[in-house]
């Protein structure tokens, strides 16, 4: 409750949706209702009511991704869903992961071969084809949209290449779900991972959605919940909230026009837009300010009341140099970049203030540099 109030507070303009989308009111309502429910595995009436809620949620998720409800496994989040996909679908296959994948993938596949990206941030399809030729029947892990730049990979073309080489494709759709939906299963993906809180649901739930015919062996066995594919009592409030969030409208045209306005202004005062040349999410903007440390930019903007991020938020709270931007060949700019990701409820009235704060931050930092030189 406190965190949500802070995100909505008038003193802080929240521009870090790719870290977490503000809770959708419908998701909050669904989660609150589900909090009153019993354990969905219980046999009694109360248990059956909970099970109905769980299965309603499963059907909603399945409908959204054009999947069979039987192929939806609820997890604690996308880190677990991605790990489950790699463990279950990757067994006996070579692993190929994109160079700009999230750590949830990279850490779960430490020995994987890396699929390079082009300078635009888009996957290098010819390099992928060469890797597939050397590793027939591999499991390919590629995100639909990148969390730091918003750059979209051409999942349809990747899916066709995978099919031609007998490979399976796992798509991390954490950032793309609701923002740039495609029929990923129809495009050839064997599985999709999503996270509830990245789409406006509560934290604590995610899902692995598979195409028909894939057997998911569990990482956590426990009491055999989720048809033996994921043990442990499902986090019903978070799951119900996630399902409700999927049904909410997302106005990418409106969000995209705000993003473009901010981008044009910041580039005008010296910023470089990374990934701006590729198809990307409407809400995401990766801005490098040459010579100014990402940490300094982030702190200055936070002190001015604008919440942005640098790289992926890691547990220590420190901003590490971005592997995503490094893979794109950004060189030193990788340590000088911030991510602006507009939430679904972003208010256009905040654009002017952000631009002023960005300009003030840029001028002060660049001025200081001249003093040092």
């Amino acid at each position, binding site marked *: 409750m406190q965190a949500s109030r802070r995100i909505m507070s008038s003193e802080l303009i929240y521009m870090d949706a790719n870290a977490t989308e503000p809770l959708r009111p419908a998701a909050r309502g669904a989660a609150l209702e589900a909090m009153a429910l019993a354990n969905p595995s219980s046999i009694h009436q109360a248990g059956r009511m909970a099970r109905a809620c769980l299965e309603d949620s499963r059907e909603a998720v399945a409908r959204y991704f054009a999947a069979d409800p039987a192929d939806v496994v609820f997890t604690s989040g996308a880190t677990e869903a991605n790990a489950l996909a790699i463990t279950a679908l990757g067994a006996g296959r070579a692993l190929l992961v994109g160079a700009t994948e999230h750590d949830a993938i990279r850490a779960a596949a430490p020995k994987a071969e890396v699929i390079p990206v082009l300078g635009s941030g888009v996957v290098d399809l010819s390099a992928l084809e060469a890797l597939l030729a050397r590793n027939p029947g591999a499991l390919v892990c590629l995100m639909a949209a990148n969390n730091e730049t918003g750059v979209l990979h051409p999942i349809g073309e990747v899916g066709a290449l995978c099919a031609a080489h007998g490979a399976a494709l796992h798509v991390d759709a954490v950032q793309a779900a609701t923002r740039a939906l495609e029929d990923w299963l129809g495009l050839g993906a064997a599985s999709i991972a999503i996270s509830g809180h990245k789409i406006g649901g509560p934290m604590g739930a995610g899902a692995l959605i598979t195409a028909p015919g894939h057997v998911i062996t569990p990482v956590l066995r426990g009491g055999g919940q989720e048809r033996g594919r994921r043990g442990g009592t499902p986090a019903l409030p978070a799951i119900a909230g996630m399902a409700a969030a999927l049904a909410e409208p997302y106005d990418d045209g409106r969000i995209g026009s705000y993003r473009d306005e901010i981008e044009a202004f910041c580039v005008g005062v010296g910023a470089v837009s990374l990934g701006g040349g590729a198809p990307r999410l409407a809400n995401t903007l990766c801005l490098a300010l040459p010579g*100014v440390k990402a*940490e300094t930019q982030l*702190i200055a903007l*936070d*002190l001015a009341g604008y919440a942005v991020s640098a790289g992926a938020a890691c547990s220590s*709270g*420190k901003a590490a140099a971005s592997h995503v931007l490094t893979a794109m060949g950004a060189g030193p700019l990788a340590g000088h970049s911030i991510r602006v990701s507009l939430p679904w409820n972003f208010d256009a009235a905040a654009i002017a203030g952000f631009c002023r704060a960005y300009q003030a931050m840029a001028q002060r930092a660049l001025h*200081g540099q001249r003093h040092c030189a």
Partner: protein
Amino acid sequence: MRIVVAMSGGVDSSVVAGLMARAGHEVIGLTLQLYDHGHAAGRKGACCAGADIHDARRVADALKISHYVIDSEERFKKSVISTFADGYAAGQTPVPCIACNQHLKFGDLLEMARDLGAEALATGHYVRRVAGADGAELHQAVDAARDQSWFLFATTRAQLEFCRFPLGEYASKAQVRALAAEMGLNVADKPDSQDICFVPSGGYADIIGKFRPDALAPGEIVDAAGAVLGTHQGIGRYTVGQARRLGNAAQQGGPGQVVTRIDPTTRRITIGPRGAMGNEIRVRDMNWLIEPPGAGGLRANARLRARDAMRPASIHSDGRVVLDEPALAAPGQAAVFYQGSRILGGGFIV
């Protein structure tokens, strides 16, 4: 005003943050992440950087101030840890805390404070900044037992203008701890940090071995005439003035033997009686916190180690220090010059 406080997670800098917040300033706490959970140094247990960062965060939460963690691992490794090892490999006895103050705290952190529009940087050092007629002066702390002024001699005058050291005025650490308790800070009873933060207690040879294994290669112990008295297991284990680890060599040389010279090229350690010392030493990279003296030099008290006695001396701006009484000076340590409680300047012993 907007003020940055360098917060280590210890009681001292936590109290500084509290004092600044209490005075009505807009406080920004910054914590340098210097090494990751002991990976850099193999340090484990209660004193790892992760726990200190956690403590700094919780103090900032309690004080309701902004707080950020700055990744300085690479910088710390390069400017502090590896130069520390390089110093030992060159036969010196470096002071990493001075390098850290110089490059990280009053270098990078101070720059960041300026970039963030702050008007001052406050730290938990036990020193006093006194406003003088010709700008800020650096003085010893009121609590002589806690005084850290020797470690801050390399601070430039411009940096000093920007700094605040509120703890230098307090009579005792007990007072600071009482303040922490009064502010409700959970670090009030946290033990003081000991020695060098990235070195496990008493075992700096491991660090040297990791960065400069050549400094742990065996060599000879000789007397002033060059006669071999014994062997040693690496010049990195010795410092000028040291009487330990000399084994039989010390007995052969007669009573009161100490290291008088370390030669990195031949890896020879020369020993001699404690009395065999000179009056004149030289320093490099001199930093003056006053106008540099003219041709005649100036009279001051020199302190050649952090906890050493004050030694009356004549100081010359070309780096010559002539002590009234002979003393052993270890290359790499600092010679810091005082008049009364005030620091005039200092340099690194050659």
